[in-house]
């Protein structure tokens, strides 16, 4: 052709007549997937090590029959129940009070923010075991709990092991939750607050409806961590004779001299509790992730299926090649 601007002849369709014959490369790609030999080899190595570990414990001087018998024993089940109870109650106190402290800490009111700062300073700065003992022994310095007309009783009637543990763990947790909530609130773009204000929303409503729901995405993972920590930290309440899981394990050991067996049983109970909570946390995170990306993260089952299939097919998303 001599003229580069020459028009395509009129009898040829504008797309160059490609429709006339079937297009090249139609239909989905069928490629041979990448083989992950590394994954196979490492899986075999890990399974081998696991087998060795199991054999070592099977041959050790552990009366596995005792473990098997005691795992369903009522005393441990009740201990687990007490652990769960103190954990949930303490976390409720911690989360609610922590959220309030976080809002106070960020408030322009200097009185509120100083009070919150002082609270966090005190409760983060002393060991929780000491706080448990301080609450439990409060009757040594205050004989009566006196709330004026409302309530008056002897302190050591009120300050049962449960109440002392609850106060110590809950108030201590609030200090940590306050910092977690503060980070979450500060992670929300200030444009969100402005948009809410521009629509005529007031401060409190903006916090509850707009900021906190978005802060949850940042708050929940460390809160789940705190929850699981609390399941275990609550064992410190054994020091004031609160009958939670750890105390029961210890008592079982000294009563029957099956010391390791007792600790193994309570370890299995702790593992069971944390597993259940991890699953709950996962679904909570999924709920608050809505709107943060174009599609929701997969459920564990979907993920498992994907991971298994990754042994065969190259997965570029999130999979670490081994």
């Amino acid at each position, binding site marked *: 052709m001599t003229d580069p601007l020459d028009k395509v002849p009129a009898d040829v369709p504008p797309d160059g007549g490609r429709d006339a014959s079937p297009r090249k490369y139609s239909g989905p790609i069928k490629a041979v997937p990448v083989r992950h030999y590394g994954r196979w080899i490492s899986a075999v190595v890990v399974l081998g090590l696991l087998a060795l570990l199991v054999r070592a414990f099977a041959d050790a001087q552990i009366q596995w029959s005792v473990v098997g018998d005691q795992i369903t024993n009522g005393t441990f089940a009740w201990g687990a129940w007490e652990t769960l109870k103190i954990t949930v109650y303490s976390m409720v106190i911690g989360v609610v009070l922590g959220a309030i402290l976080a809002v106070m800490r960020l408030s322009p009111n200097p009185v509120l923010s100083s009070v919150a700062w002082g609270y966090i300073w005190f409760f983060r700065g002393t060991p929780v075991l000491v706080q448990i003992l301080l609450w439990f022994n409060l009757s040594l310095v205050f004989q009566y709990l006196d709330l004026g007309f409302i309530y008056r009783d002897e302190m050591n009637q009120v300050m049962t092991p449960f109440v002392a543990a609850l106060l110590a763990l809950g108030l201590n947790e609030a200090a940590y939750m306050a910092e977690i909530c503060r980070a979450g609130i500060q992670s929300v773009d200030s444009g969100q607050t402005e948009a809410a204000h521009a*629509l005529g*929303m007031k401060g409190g409503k903006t916090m509850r409806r*707009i900021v906190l729901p978005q802060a949850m995405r940042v708050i929940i993972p460390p809160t789940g961590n705190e929850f699981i920590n609390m399941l275990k930290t609550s064992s410190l309440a054994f020091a004031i004779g609160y009958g939670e899981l750890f105390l029961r394990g210890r008592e079982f050991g000294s009563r029957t001299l099956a010391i390791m067996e007792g600790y193994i049983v309570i370890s299995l109970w702790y593992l069971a509790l944390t597993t259940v909570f991890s699953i709950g946390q996962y679904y909570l995170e999924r709920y608050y992730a809505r709107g943060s990306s174009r599609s929701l993260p997969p459920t564990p089952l979907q993920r498992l299926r994907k991971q298994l299939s990754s042994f065969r097919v190259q997965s570029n998303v999130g999979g670490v090649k081994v």
Partner: protein
Amino acid sequence: MSSQSTQPMVKAENVHKSFGHLKVLKGIDLEVAHREVFCLVGPSGSGKSTFLRCINHLEQINGGRLSVDGRLVGYREKGDKLYELKEKEVAAQRRDIGMVFQRFNLFPHMTALTNVMEAPVQVKGESKSVARERALKLLDRVGLADKAKNYPTQLSGGQQQRVAIARALAMEPKLMLFDEPTSALDPELVGEVLDVMRGLAEDGMTMIVVTHEMGFAREVGDALVFMDDGVVVEAGHPRDVLGNPQHERTKSFLSKVL
């Protein structure tokens, strides 16, 4: 009560605003009439956004008087003293003023529909069914009836900005503020947002529009102000200011953006 014939919608008299030592607005005087489309142009940092934010009290002015529909913004005047309004009263003033942001600022944890429903339900205490009805109508008006169930991340920039306009309209404002509503958008998405704004203007909405879209200003605007360095340099009909600028600063600015 205000009456349309006598009272301008927005009246600024010698408005000053500084951030610490930085003087951003240095005596702004202007009036926006009812049903007028008022365009605000000027170089970056000249104080356009700051002025717009003063109108709905996202920023507090330091000097002068600023009133919307005959009422001072953020203050009550009693005798010769000014009293700051309480949070509740400020919020009540803002209800009547819609604002559209450069970066959309949609609520990401809510769908397009619930974004639009949120303020009527939470601020006006409207029932959900009434709010939903109106939200669906507004989404339809901005051409997004089929996107009601989508979250903001699932929408294009132009679609997000149109939802943001619907969200502001849901409060049935008497004044709409637009802060560079199209400058975060890809060029091919600008048109769909301007179309919605043009429709609003035709329906008689009073609008103050900060924009770099001179075509829109010329075609839709009733008045245009050129701001530079915290002062109004030139004001008039967009046709005149854009077509025949009088000041050197206006000329040099326009030569860069046109």
